[in-house]
């Protein structure tokens, strides 16, 4: 299943067994994406929450 990154337009391949709500990253721009639907395959930018911090 193929779709594209809503931020940079890069091709996003959804692996077999992917489920709605799953999170993944755009391989090009690194944007965190959430799977919205599988038929048709569609992703949106995942909401960022404050606990998703790092260093």
């Amino acid at each position, binding site marked *: 299943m193929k779709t594209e990154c809503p931020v940079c337009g890069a091709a996003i391949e959804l692996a077999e067994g992917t489920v709605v709500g799953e999170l993944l990253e755009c391989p090009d721009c690194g944007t965190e994406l959430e799977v919205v639907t599988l038929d048709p395959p569609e992703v949106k930018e995942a909401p*960022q929450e404050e606990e998703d911090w*790092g260093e």
Partner: protein
Amino acid sequence: MKDYKALTQQYEIDVYPRRDVVLVKGKDARLWDDNGKEYIDLAAGISVANIGHSNEKVVDAISKQAATLITCANTFYNDTKALFLEKLFSVAPANLTRAFLTNSGTEAVEAAIKFARAVTKKTKFIATMKGFHGRTYGALSATYKKEYRDIFEPLVPGFSFAPYNNFEKLSELVDDGTAGIILEPVQGEGGINIGQKEYFQKVRKLCDEKNILLIIDEIQTGFCRTGKMFAIEHLGIEADMMTLAKSIAGGFPMGALLCSDKIQIEKGKHGSTFGGNPLACAAGIASIDFMLENKLWEQAEAKGKYFREKLEQHTLSKMRELRQIGLMIGIELKDKSHPVIIELLEKGIVTLPAGTTVLRLLPPLVISYEDLDTAIEKLVEVLK
């Protein structure tokens, strides 16, 4: 007993999304909270306590130095600093010959950006998407994540970002104004993304052809974490500058920028009050001595391999991918890592996030195989 959480919440600027635990004590790869609960540490204070918490050699060195001389202006020579520099360069890549000493990683990155501008007389820099280099203005300008940047803009101009491990996209950003390219050998905060040898070798060649300085950020990867003293040793290249911090002094705040002979800076153009102070240098000598005496890079290599082999024996439905080099481990999940981190904490295991979906494990390199087994058991319970 004082309410430590309430006091902190009352008086500290609230920039840290905190766990609901008050840590009060550490030893090797164990931590304890104020209720006496014991934890196995798989974070090491974000790769700081590589030689273990409250390492006896470091405690002893700091105690002795504190009783002798705590501070010394950098306009004077100091015996402990001289000995630390000698020790540091005994383990550093051979082409790096001089250091600027700092108190943190971000200051080391700041110095690298300033020195690159000064040496090349150019002003542009290329960094990578998902890269993290620090929070001060120069370092933040090289850091990708927009949530760290947005409210502080405008940042230092001239920074652009290419996808990590993608030489073609990076080379498209290079022009006559490019002073430096800054890369992590393994992206830590970005999700434990491991740098490809061929990519780094192509970048090195490009830098040589275009008179660009290559800055390798080893703040998180340095000092045995990846199974080598420095991760650059996996890549077969030389850096023009290398940033160090985190585990350099056993947990005592310290950083360093190591420079090749290309880097020449005039007197008075840069400096630091506390950088390379006697206490930090004493801790640094003890820390590096401990790494050498215990061949800590070999321990990281063996324990990382052991962890991978043991974890891969299990089917983990929440895991998408395991990325590991030495004891630098990223478990990419199919969902947010935060709930997993909290569940593990309740089970007595301290872990870290790396972005939204990656569980980052950076245990002290002295962690026992028994503690690794316990940690793997708990991980399996949470991720199955």
